[in-house]
């Protein structure tokens, strides 16, 4: 067992974990943060995307021990750590609701976390920027059009 200290969604947590434990397992199984989901076994789908020190990563492809000493934000803490009042959605979550950016919703936590990262780096992306920036996130339902629309909407209007 290895002792880790991680800040998750604004709270400091300390745990003894097996070094082989994946960050996504730690979030779901140890902390009960099941908002972050696992969609594949190959690090391809992006459903498990969280922020590590403010940048998007696939949490199925990071060890929990590698997150020790760092800050993790999941879909569950996105609104609150972004300074939004209790019960309020983050503007990107709001945009996905507004533009019908989901069907089954399985890919949505990862889509939203990646979209937030993309918009942090490029606040006014073109449609092409969004499609390229979201290429690590797969969706089996929507055909992507409304996801792209949602991200552009969050950026301040379609272009």
């Amino acid at each position, binding site marked *: 067992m290895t002792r880790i200290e991680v800040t998750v969604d604004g709270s400091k947590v300390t745990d003894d974990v097996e070094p082989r434990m994946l960050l996504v397992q730690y979030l779901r199984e140890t902390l009960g943060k099941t908002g972050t989901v696992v969609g594949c076994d190959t690090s391809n789908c992006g459903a498990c995307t969280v922020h590590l020190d403010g*940048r998007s990563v696939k949490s199925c492809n990071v060890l929990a021990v590698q997150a020790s000493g760092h800050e993790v934000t999941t879909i569950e803490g996105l609104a609150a750590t972004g300074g939004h009042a209790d019960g309020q959605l983050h503007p990107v979550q709001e945009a996905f609701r507004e533009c019908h950016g989901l069907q089954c919703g399985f890919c949505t936590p990862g889509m939203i976390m990646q979209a937030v990262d993309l918009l942090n780096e490029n606040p006014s992306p073109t449609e092409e920027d969004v499609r390229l920036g979201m290429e690590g996130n797969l969706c089996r339902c929507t055909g992507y059009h409304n996801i792209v629309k949602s991200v552009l909407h969050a950026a301040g209007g379609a272009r």
Partner: protein
Amino acid sequence: MIPTPFEYVAPTTLDEALAALAEHGDEAKVIAGGQSLLPVLRMRLNAPEVVVDLGGIPALRGIRDDGDAIVIGAMTTHHDVHHDPLVHEHAALLAKAEEHLADAQVRHRGTFGGALAHADPAGDLGAPVLALGAEFVVAGPSGSRTVAGSDFFVGLFETAIAEGELLVEVRVPKHTGWGAHYEKFVRVAHQWPIVAVAVAVRTEGGTIAEARVGLTNMGSTPLRAHSVEEALAGRPVTEDAVREAAALAAEGTNPPSDLNGQADYRRHLAGVLTRRAVLAAAGA
């Protein structure tokens, strides 16, 4: 699936990391960004007893100016290489290759050194690094040595890094003012190329003065297309002249046949992509 159990070591200096490798020998595996290693461990294609994490060693991260070269620390992430001003000014070809390597999430974690040490023949960094004549600084128990680019890639997933050694940094000679382009042919998003071509050119007026051409996935290692480079030197930047030189791209290569394409298809692609890459690099 999750990896088989292992012991985790997190050194904070290069010496500590080398000591851990010396202690555990071939039972140890180094982890950098983990973007290639963790999928392998999760599929249980490898089951090391000990994993040595380079993530806590600040000295391995960052890019510096060193006279006639820029030096890229092994643990610098793909994202940081992609956005670095020194890279854009002196080795633009690397930024072009990083731009379409994997996806944003993988680029935030995966490292420049990890990708080169992994030596996947379809990896996007080998060909550009080779084309720019880079050198590899490798450290071991008895000090460090410099390996020429042409000696670094030994075979399929195999490099000159010996057991107990670590890749520390990569020295990339400055190609200031050179035009650059990385032409990558893929079937689906965020994946490894079926074939890709890396080109840097120095033009004088409408003429190609010098060219450097690297090929991805045209053999078990990245390759330099010397005959194309020679054929381009002194030629005008025209579609016809470039097409003629690019036709030599597959010379001496031994591309694989797999689900994505047969060897002869890859040879054809090499010529087409080389023409496109040279014209784009030369600004035509």
